[in-house]
């Protein structure tokens, strides 16, 4: 049984870490981009960002004043039980979100869409989002808490494509999105770009968002052809000639991640999501004995999450 107090205190620590500490994989990616950037204004922007991450860590203040919309991804093993059950878990995550919004402080971004009511704590109807995943292994009782503080009103779009649109249609929508997000830098590039392909409209959006937020820079899809497409899309985005803030430059994309889901035979849904200069995520695994392990890789897309068959056949995966 996972102690509920430990879930809440760990969730509070994760809220702080996500807001303040840029994940190392994104930082390394941005440093590599800064080293190649030769547009004078865009390279000034990248240098300022690198200083900004240092300032945030030194001062223990949020890296960006727009602290996004905090959300949770929760994953657990097949044997996991939580003290107080799932209702207690959700209450603990809501409490942690509210407490650390005031504690860090974060910006109380969440308001009612019509009445603009602001509880000043980032909690409200449907906020924070809490999404779940389950894993057959490792065995034993453990829970992963992942918080993502995604920013950006501008960096997301969806298009219904058809099989006849093909890879050329995918590239077109990808470029349309990057250019639209990138002009004047409203989506704060260079970003991790997540692309959802297939599913239904809602799942396509979910896949793309997870591809952006739950995979690290340098990670490749386990399907080699999709992995090659990811490389190609990264290159394509960086050859637009646009850099940070939409200034002349050559870094739009720190990495491109594609996730797929089976879709209707007549369609090819596509979504594009930009995880911005504040690519905020933090992860911890909690065990029943009270151990807590922190990391920044959500490791969400396991073979089990991408399974294709009716029954889960782990021995098949192991043989591959």
């Amino acid at each position, binding site marked *: 049984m996972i102690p509920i107090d430990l879930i809440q205190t760990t969730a509070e620590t994760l809220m702080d870490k996500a807001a303040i500490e840029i994940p190392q994989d994104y930082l390394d990616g941005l440093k590599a981009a800064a080293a190649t950037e030769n547009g004078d204004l865009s390279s000034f922007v990248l240098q300022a960002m690198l200083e900004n991450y240092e300032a945030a860590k030194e001062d223990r203040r949020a890296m960006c004043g727009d602290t996004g919309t905090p959300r949770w991804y929760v994953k657990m093993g097949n044997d996991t039980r939580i003290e107080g059950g799932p209702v207690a878990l959700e209450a603990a995550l809501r409490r942690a979100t509210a407490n650390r919004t005031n504690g860090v402080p974060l910006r*109380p971004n969440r308001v009612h869409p019509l009445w603009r009511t602001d509880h000043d704590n980032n909690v409200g109807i449907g906020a924070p989002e809490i999404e779940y995943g389950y894993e057959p292994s490792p065995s034993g009782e453990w829970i992963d808490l992942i918080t993502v503080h995604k920013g950006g009103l501008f960096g997301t779009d969806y298009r219904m494509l058809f099989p006849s649109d093909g890879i050329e249609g995918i590239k077109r929508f990808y470029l349309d999105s990057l250019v639209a997000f990138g002009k004047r830098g409203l989506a704060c590039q260079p970003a991790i770009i997540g692309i959802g392909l297939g599913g239904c409209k809602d799942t396509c959006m979910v896949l793309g968002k997870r591809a952006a937020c739950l995979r690290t820079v340098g990670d490749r899809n386990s399907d080699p052809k999709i992995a090659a497409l990811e490389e190609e899309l990264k290159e394509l985005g960086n050859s637009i000639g646009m850099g940070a803030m939409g200034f002349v430059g050559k870094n739009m994309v720190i990495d491109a991640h594609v996730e797929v889901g089976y879709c209707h035979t007549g369609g090819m849904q596509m979504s594009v999501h930009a995880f911005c200069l504040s690519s905020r995520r933090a992860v911890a695994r909690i065990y029943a004995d009270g151990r807590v392990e922190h990391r920044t890789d959500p490791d969400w897309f396991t073979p089990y999450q991408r399974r294709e068959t009716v029954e889960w056949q782990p021995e098949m995966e192991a043989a591959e």
Partner: protein
Amino acid sequence: MSPREIRLSTTPTAEDIAALRLGDVVYLDGLMYTAREGVYMRALETKANIPMELPSESAANFHCSPAASIRKDGSFDMGAVTATASFRFAKWLPEWMEKTGARLIIGKGGMSSRDYKRYFVPNGAVYLTTVGYGTGALLGRGVENVEAVHWHEELGLAQAMWVLRCNRMGPFIVASDLEGNCLFERENARISDRISQVYEGTRPATLRRFGETDDRNEELI
């Protein structure tokens, strides 16, 4: 070539502003206030009295909601500050500038050269853009003190009018000048030639959507 760095007062003289060039990097000293749709609507539409002496106290309007909270004892905890996109405020800015004498509009992403020519230039004002735009921690360091928060009960923390004392707050980039030129439009023009090349080999979507065209009679498939 790295950009030129300038320190500027938040109550700048006309000469200070005239000396600014597109792409200059600016650091600000003095009082700055945040005002966005909430403040504009309250001041201009419901005609509430603006609780500051403008522009003598400050001619710098920041389009921003800070990551901040008000402690139980009434003092403030200010973390990071990042601007919000300014184009949405074009509706109120001409009247606001006239009423408050704002000379520095600070935000995210700038406005169009049409806006600059129409009401920035006649008011002797320029636009400064924040950088990144995620440089909230650096900007937060430049806030020496939170002098006051007005209207937070009426508008909430995010929309309230925060009055900030700045000490070398920055960096900001000059994004318009007194001729009404626009930095972002200049950069877009430089990039657009290349864009048609990268589009080669791509395919327009089979299905176009209502709303992507203004012609309501157009057959979309």
